[in-house]
């Protein structure tokens, strides 16, 4: 049973760590701008992030990101800068407020429901014994 416990501890640790966020401001400017360019969409291309897009506007938006980073702005401020100009759809995932919470609630619900069903099966097996 020892190993099962190990797995449990390992899993719970993993989940705690996973949702705790890494401090993204610790990286070099270039790393941060690369990260940001993966989080911001090119407003004129269909479903492409700045990182993927070849368009002129996307290139220039990457310059904006670098400029603002070297001015000392935080990632959050830069994301807000673009949201204020291009709307929420410029973010690769919406900000976690308002209705958008459902974007995160539903996956959790799906997961929890599944776990409950499996636990139920487990209990049924126990009961039969």
């Amino acid at each position, binding site marked *: 049973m020892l190993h099962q416990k190990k797995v449990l501890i390992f899993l719970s640790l993993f989940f705690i760590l996973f949702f705790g966020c890494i401090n993204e401001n610790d990286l070099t400017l270039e790393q941060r701008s690369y990260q940001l360019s993966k989080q911001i969409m090119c*407003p*004129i291309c269909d479903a492409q992030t700045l990182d993927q897009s070849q*368009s*002129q*506007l996307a290139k*220039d*938006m990457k*310059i*904006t990101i670098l*400029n603002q980073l070297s001015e000392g702005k935080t990632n959050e401020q830069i994301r807000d800068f673009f949201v*204020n*100009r*291009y*709307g929420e759809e410029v973010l690769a995932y919406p900000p976690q407020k308002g209705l958008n919470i459902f974007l995160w609630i539903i996956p959790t619900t799906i997961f929890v429901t599944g776990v409950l069903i499996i636990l139920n099966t487990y209990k049924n097996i126990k009961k039969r014994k």
Partner: protein
Amino acid sequence: MKNRKKIILALLPISLLIIILLISSLGKSDDNNQLGVNSSFSYAPIAIPEDKDFTIKTLLGDQISKKDYPGKIIILDFWSSWCIPCIQEGPVLSNLSKEWSDRNVQFLGVSVWDTKENVLDFINKNDIQYPNAIDKNGQIAIDFGVRGIPEKIIIDSKGKIIHRIIGPSTKPSLEKILDQLTTEILKNN
């Protein structure tokens, strides 16, 4: 009936999804603005704060901003010498700027993704007299949330951004807007 409950539970989210899909595909329009060039005239929502200022370095080397044009209606035009709708628009804007210059209307041009040669060439060819600037890396355009060219930001006499127009505008369409704005100024005075 435990079963019936389950059925309803399963059907509920599915039917909700279907309804949403239906509604959204009914309201779907086919618009594509490839390569950042807007080919048809329309008003676009303004996402930027309405009292937003700008600082632009013109081709002549002056720094201009909103406070240089107190009480004037400003038409800030984002364009490029290689963009076909902008080329068609060139003479229209040149004429309009001359006709309306004595009626508190100031045109300003910002040429995006362009070279100095081409811009000067374009200005000379169309006899454009209002100030123009080159925004080589698109930073001014991005600051105004511009997606494609041509795009115009119209600022009223109180310095408030009131319209964002994308696509090439014709002389009558711009005249209508300017008429409206200048009569408002007269009324207020």
